[in-house]
């Protein structure tokens, strides 16, 4: 299958983020003192388990970032013509999950639709009944008999596949030494990555089981327009991660620059910067976001022809949301950095550097910046979970991501009124909350571990 790669704005920023991360990792690996706190994170049991779960989310998100236009045919000269539809690598892997749409709601693992319809039988008579799903459980008999046994068999088969993949992965990571892998599985052994290994096994087995089942059923049901909820939840991972990371990425340069400048230069620079963040801070965040998003909506609807496609428009809206969330959240980091720099600039080594005639810029970059980086890191990790949760809330008040973007907030928003139905349509809500909860819980626990490992003040208390 030939294709034409597409790089949306957020994609470009994600690639930038991955690039920066790679440089950071490379730099950290070469310096013992930088590596030390990360070792402490990796030694912690919670640290290992949460890292594996976060890695799983990140992989799904990255797969969903590789966008392209599929080939739709050829023109007269035999040149390839590409469709304007934007797909991602995740869509390709998910394949039938994306395309197999039912008519409307159906419960998880259902074989029949959720609402009654008038069906015409082969004999010509019409009855009102629950129609059979087109794809969900299509391999079963008409009545859907033997479903429970089938589900368990398929789940076990899928889990086995996941375990095999895990085994292969572990063998590769341990450079094919079988005894080390066996050591990893032994309860109470001294293998340093035991918890991480077990978590990975669990995650892979559960996911593979769901994946295997998703080929035959709608594991988490379908939504109002018949789209698979499991697929939607997976697609929403990218949005959640983007909001959590890009927001910090876009606000970081301003926060660091202004924060350390205010603390280092003091005087009128400090006054101006303090005025700036006090002013921004005094507007309640939600209201500022609402005002800004409202203005952007008007701009977009009045300049609709500036956007090539709906995908591009939704993508820019997501980016703008990250920007405006960044504007409201940089102030706290800026204040922290200012305070820390105020302390650092009076220390002997900075005084000595100044006495030697080292320039301001060099002092800031060589002496101040490296010593406030732990604060920056802790803030990034702490902010992440809050931002993921904020996305859902903002999408609910319709000042969040574009309605066309799949996100947990949009899923919740679309499904919440269905709780009034009888019987209740609960699966969309539960899927969105479940995926979000897992990510946020992992991020919260991880941020605690990171803070404990990096904050020198906390370490002394122990």
């Amino acid at each position, binding site marked *: 299958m030939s294709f034409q790669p597409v790089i949306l704005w957020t994609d470009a920023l994600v690639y930038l983020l991955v690039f920066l991360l790679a440089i950071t990792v490379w730099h950290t690996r070469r310096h013992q003192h930088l590596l030390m706190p990360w070792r402490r994170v990796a030694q912690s049991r919670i640290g290992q388990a949460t890292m594996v779960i976060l890695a799983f989310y990140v992989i799904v998100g990255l797969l969903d970032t590789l966008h392209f236009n599929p080939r739709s045919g050829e023109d007269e000269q035999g040149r390839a013509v590409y469709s304007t539809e934007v797909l991602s690598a995740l869509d390709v892997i998910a394949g039938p999950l994306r395309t197999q749409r039912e008519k409307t709601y159906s419960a998880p693992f259902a074989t029949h639709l959720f609402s009654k319809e008038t069906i015409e039988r082969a004999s010509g008579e019409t009855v009102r009944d629950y129609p059979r799903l087109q794809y969900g459980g299509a391999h079963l008999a008409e009545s859907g008999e033997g479903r429970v046994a089938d589900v368990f068999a398929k789940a076990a088969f899928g889990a086995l596949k996941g375990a095999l993949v895990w085994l292969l992965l572990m063998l590769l990571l341990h450079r094919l030494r079988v005894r080390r892998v066996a050591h990893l599985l032994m309860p109470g052994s001294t293998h340093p990555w035991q918890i991480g290994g077990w978590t990975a096994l669990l995650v892979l087995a559960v996911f593979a089981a769901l994946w295997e089942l998703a080929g035959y059923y709608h594991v988490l049901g379908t939504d109002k327009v018949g789209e698979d909820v499991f697929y939607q939840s997976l697609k929403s991972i990218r949005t959640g991660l983007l909001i959590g990371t890009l927001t910090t990425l876009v606000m970081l340069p301003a926060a660091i620059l202004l924060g350390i400048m205010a603390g280092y230069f003091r005087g009128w620079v400090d006054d101006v910067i303090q*005025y700036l963040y*006090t*002013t*921004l*801070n*005094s*507007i*309640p965040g*939600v*209201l*500022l976001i*609402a*005002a*800004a998003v*409202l*203005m952007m*909506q*008007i*701009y977009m*609807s*009045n300049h609709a022809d500036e956007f090539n496609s709906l995908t591009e428009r939704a993508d820019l809206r997501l980016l703008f949301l990250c920007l405006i969330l960044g504007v409201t959240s940089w102030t706290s980091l800026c204040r922290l950095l200012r305070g820390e720099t105020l302390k650092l600039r009076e220390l002997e080594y900075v005084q000595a550097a100044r006495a030697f005639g080292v320039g301001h810029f060099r002092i800031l970059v060589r002496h101040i910046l490296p010593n406030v980086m732990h604060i920056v890191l802790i803030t990034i990790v702490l902010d992440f*979970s809050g931002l993921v*949760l904020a996305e*859902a*809330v903002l999408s*609910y*008040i*319709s*000042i969040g991501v574009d309605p066309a973007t799949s996100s*947990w907030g949009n899923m*919740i928003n679309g499904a*919440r009124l269905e*709780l*009034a139905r009888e019987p*209740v349509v609960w699966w969309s*809500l539960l899927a969105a*909350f479940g995926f*979000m*909860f897992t990510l*946020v*819980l992992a991020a*919260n*626990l991880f941020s*605690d571990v990171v803070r404990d490992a990096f904050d020198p003040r906390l370490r002394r*208390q122990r």
Partner: protein
Amino acid sequence: MSAYIIRRLLYALPILIGVNALTFVLFFVVNSPDDMARMHLGGKRVTDQSIQAWKEEHGYDKPLLINQAEQGMAKFTGTILYEKSIRLFLFDFGQSDSGRDISHDISQRMWPSLAIALPTLLVGLAVNITFALLLAFFRATYLDLWGVVICVAMMSISGLFYIIGGQFLVGKLLNLVPISGYDTGVHAWKFLILPVIVGVIGGIGSGTRWYRTLFLEEIHRDYVRSARAKGLSEQWVLFRHVLRNALIPILTGVVVVLPLLFIGSLLTESFFGIPGLGSYTIDAINNQDFAIVRSMVFLGAVLYIIGLLLTDISYTIVDPRVRLD
């Protein structure tokens, strides 16, 4: 003291001017009044006449900064900057885009907001402090460990889940109270109780954890050690010494949000159909009523600054070491 308050109020002025300038740029420069008119009248095929008519009707037909057509002071007062922005300083919010008097709406709608927000804050405070003291008392035991784990888990649940879950469980399954709505007077309680419970439960995770950290910080201080050394019981130490000293940061954290309670919570109010300022803002966002959103941004900033001022004053009251001169 009064000199200090006056000075602080003067400090607040440039900040409010900044907020005002920001909203002015956001609402009138990023998108011109023409754009707004087009948005309201719908789509691109709108005649210039109808745009002009809409602008005249809502008072957006004046120039932005300087009105050359007028004489004297009217050069500056006959502009959008003066009529729509500077008037906010006098708390004259003008008319909303749908023609209602915003000041009147705000004075009507802040009481339901307060009726929800204040009990939520007070009950939440009591519950959180109780739990945090319990965890601090049993610190470094399994009770403490699991308490913190539950707190983190509760923090990780989206606020939407608490609201939707609460409405579903209490309102629909158990049928105890109405799911949403509001009533004036004494009968309001059955509409208020569910939002308050949901708000309190939603805040337990982060609140308890934060207060526990504060208590633990105090517990490691020297005065606590001396209190124990002279033979006081652990309960006495905790309630008489740790709690009273930890109340200083707790109180200041509470005072700063007190004025903002008038604005209420956007989420809670729209879910429970409370006619407060939060749902007022949401309605304005959905109807794209810029005048209301602009007024709320300004009001929010004013209340926040009042909160900061109250915080500083409350410091002098609870902590005799702090003097404001």
